[in-house]
């Protein structure tokens, strides 16, 4: 990656200097200065060279020439305009990082069952996708679940906590988790009995709410964080059907209303909604509906576009709807954008843009003490395994999260041997991947903001990256966001003031 990139918006010229993480308005003379500098032409000869090679440019800026030359040289002294490519370090994964992630585990997700009482058309385990194991109606048994808890309880005894007031989510995932309540109840009781007191655990679950009525007392009593999957009004909900193909709307809405009525405080504090955007709903419609009916602002997500069944590509794209496109269809766009500000794709994109590419953003106190001039990352967009969570499937396989395919488990759990995690083979697996992609990443302009998780690569053994960004692409990326900022400069201030990035 070259250290300085010049780029334009329709109205202005800029440069981005990666060494200093700085954006500047670029004077038209600076690009030729930089070229001359790279050719090692002495600064004394620049004027003559520019007069000869770019007579019009020279004529236009003749008076300013000395000033902008002086400023260019001043900036050069500050480390701008370096000829050498930016020095970047992509470090390999070490087993101690895996250990730390396990010590500080934030979330345990149990796939309670892979059975479901709905048959949503776009389900990740449905006909649109092909990257999962065959679902055989397996429930996770409590003995395995407890072995996972035991593993951590023992671990914490040996290694003192590195964090204070550590919160941990114990999450129940499906299929539909409410189909296996005995497991959930046993796990909850075990946690309450055996977890060390320093850990603030919190139970959570995502549910389609078909069985909410008969379980709501328990969920409220244990203060479950409940994420309800609801795509909006009846039409919007029409992909979420039962096995007979009947829309679940009429079944679930009365149950959610009953929850709100019976447990208003719990509902207000701990219940959230998630809607998937598709061709039968819109962001605005979902926001309005959930606000009106339940006084909540739902989270909104798109269909996962990895692992699509090759035979169903057309159907997938018929169903798929992009959030940004959906927003554009809003009748009251400004109001919708205000409500949805933090989740807006442009706001999220801008957040990444400003936090990764400027020196205004600092994540931790520690970062004030270390030089951030050279980027230090582990394998571009993939998280350190278990730094986000540990996911245990109903068949007892272990993964770093629930969003990835099931081809590469990182461990397993059974009743006899308990949880087995072989750090060394995980490290080898990650680093082998890294060694295959590192040359590409080192040339890639997206490196600082890469979010390409290796599990989403088409062929993890022979990776090629669809998100690779060359210099032209990077110029376009910078230009798009600077143009957005020229148009809506207040966005940046609002992001700075209101949003905390994780």
């Amino acid at each position, binding site marked *: 990656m070259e250290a300085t990139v010049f780029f334009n918006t329709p109205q202005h010229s800029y440069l981005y200097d990666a060494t200093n993480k700085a954006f500047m308005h670029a004077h038209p003379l600076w690009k030729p200065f930089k070229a001359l500098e790279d050719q090692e032409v002495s600064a004394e000869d620049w004027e003559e060279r520019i007069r000869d090679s770019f007579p019009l440019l020279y004529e236009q800026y003749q008076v300013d020439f000395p000033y902008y030359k002086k400023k260019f040289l001043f900036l050069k002294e500050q480390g701008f305009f370096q000829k050498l490519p930016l020095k970047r370090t992509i470090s390999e994964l070490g087993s101690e990082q895996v250990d730390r992630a396990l010590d500080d585990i934030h979330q345990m997700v149990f796939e309670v069952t892979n059975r479901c009482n709905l048959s949503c058309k776009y389900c990740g385990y449905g006909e649109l996708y092909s990257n999962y194991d065959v679902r055989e109606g397996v429930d996770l048994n409590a003995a395995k679940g407890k072995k996972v808890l035991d593993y951590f309880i023992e671990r914490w005894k040996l290694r003192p906590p*590195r964090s204070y007031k550590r919160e941990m989510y114990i999450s129940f995932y499906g299929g539909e988790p409410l189909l296996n309540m005995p497991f959930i109840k046993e796990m909850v009781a075990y946690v309450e009995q055996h977890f060390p007191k320093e850990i603030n655990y919190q139970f959570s679950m995502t549910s389609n709410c078909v069985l909410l009525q008969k379980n709501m007392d328990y969920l409220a009593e244990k203060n479950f964080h409940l994420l309800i999957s609801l795509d909006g009004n009846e039409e919007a909900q029409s992909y979420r059907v039962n096995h007979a193909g009947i829309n679940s709307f009429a079944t679930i809405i009365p149950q959610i209303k009953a929850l709100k009525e019976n447990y208003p405080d719990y509902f207000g504090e701990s219940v959230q909604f998630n809607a998937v955007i598709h061709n039968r709903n819109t962001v605005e419609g979902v926001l309005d509906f959930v606000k009106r009916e339940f006084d909540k602002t739902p989270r909104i997500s798109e269909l996962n576009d990895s692992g699509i069944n090759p035979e169903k590509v057309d159907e997938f794209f018929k169903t798929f709807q992009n959030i940004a496109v959906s927003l554009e269809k809003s009748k009251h766009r400004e109001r919708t954008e205000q409500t949805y500000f933090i989740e807006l794709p442009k706001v999220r994109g801008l957040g990444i843009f400003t936090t990764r590419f400027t020196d205004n953003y600092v994540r931790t106190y520690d970062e004030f003490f270390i030089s951030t001039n050279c980027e230090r990352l582990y394998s571009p967009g993939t998280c350190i395994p278990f730094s986000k969570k540990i996911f245990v499937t109903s068949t007892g396989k272990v993964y770093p999260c629930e969003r990835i395919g099931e081809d590469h488990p990182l461990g397993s759990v059974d009743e006899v041997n308990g949880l087995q995690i072989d750090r060394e083979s995980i490290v080898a697996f990650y680093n082998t991947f890294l060694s295959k992609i590192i040359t590409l990443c080192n040339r890639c302009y997206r490196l600082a903001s890469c979010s390409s998780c290796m599990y989403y690569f088409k062929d993890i053994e022979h990776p090629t990256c669809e998100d690779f960004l060359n210099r032209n692409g990077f110029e376009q990326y910078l230009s798009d966001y600077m143009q957005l900022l020229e148009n809506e400069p207040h966005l940046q201030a609002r992001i700075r003031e209101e949003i905390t990035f994780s």
Partner: protein
Amino acid sequence: MNTEEHAMNYYFYIENYSLFFEKEERFFVYNTYNGKWADCPASSELRTLFTPFLEGINYAVFLSDEAITAYQLWPFIEAVREGFSGDLISAGDATMAPFLFPSLLDFRLEKRKLDKKERELGQEVYSNLKEISFFLHPRIVPENGLFLPEQIFYSKEIVPVAEGWQQVYLPFLHQLTINWDGIIHIWCNCCDEKMWSSVCEVFAPIPAFKIVHTAVESMPPSLEGLLNKDTFSYEVYVTDDSEEECLNKWLQLQSETDIELLFQWLISSEKEWENASDWMERNQIEHVNLLPYYNGENRFFFEEHIYVKEKDLLFEIINKKDIFARKMFNTNYFGKLFLCPDGQLYAHPADDSLGKISEVSLPEMIHQELSEGRTWLSIRDQEPCASCRYQWICPSPSDLERALDRPNLCHLKK
């Protein structure tokens, strides 16, 4: 600057490496690369014109020729340009200002942003601990009973560590060093043979880097056990009364054993400063730190030699990251803890204790200091500094201010 004569409209911008702020009813621009300043009076009209600067929305604003002339902005703009702190460009056909990132910190752990999310602050809380001091003995010079300098040890009555102190410190050290690799300071009376041997026993096996602080008169009976250049160094306190012979002994020890050695020379007057400098020159010694020492009677010495002067501040170059840091926390104190012989842990020995190590966990105490501490987070937000243009150019409040009982150490504001 585009010099087309008919160009009447401009965009005026401040570079992202410069700061724009209002103090003392003036607008200031400070360039963090070269320390250059520019300023102009802050009238209400200009306040409106510069709203995007002041609210941190954009470091570029539209300016017409008339406005520049009417508000007499040319000298200010010239100063900004001369300092390479910003520019004035012709607006030409552009209908929108360029976007320049305001140099304002976006700190994820800022209290205001975290609100009640204590978890965030508590995460990896150990990484905020940089240094920890173990006080084993309040007196470092046994014969004349000289206390450690007030600025270092304060007026707190500290009883020397009791017999069996290892039992109190060891479990704590063990817990600490599993996950931590900061610096350990050991304040002790090295010539007390018994203490010295237990220091060696307790600290030598610990992999963290250790600095032994002691008085020049207090030479350890043997360096066996501690002598590992990679993980040990010595800071030796010298006063004007110290015997030259003692200094020489340390120097000799250093040449024989190659230990890392720094003399901390306490200076309370000009005369003492001269004496120390003489000695350094005579012996060609460089590893000496002259440490201004307030003895309760030498305020004049401080006012003359230690207080900051505006002419120095005017040329001070402080980079953006340091300025951001000074806005958020005390760069002298942050990350340091002090353990006293009674097991009480302090963020600063002169403040209230954070708790007893046998009763409160270390992560909890660090978290406490991070969230409500008066030491780590003490910044120049009190008067007169709060309304001074050098608020973030001046270093964070330090022990000298504490010793002199003043909020500021300058001649600018009383």
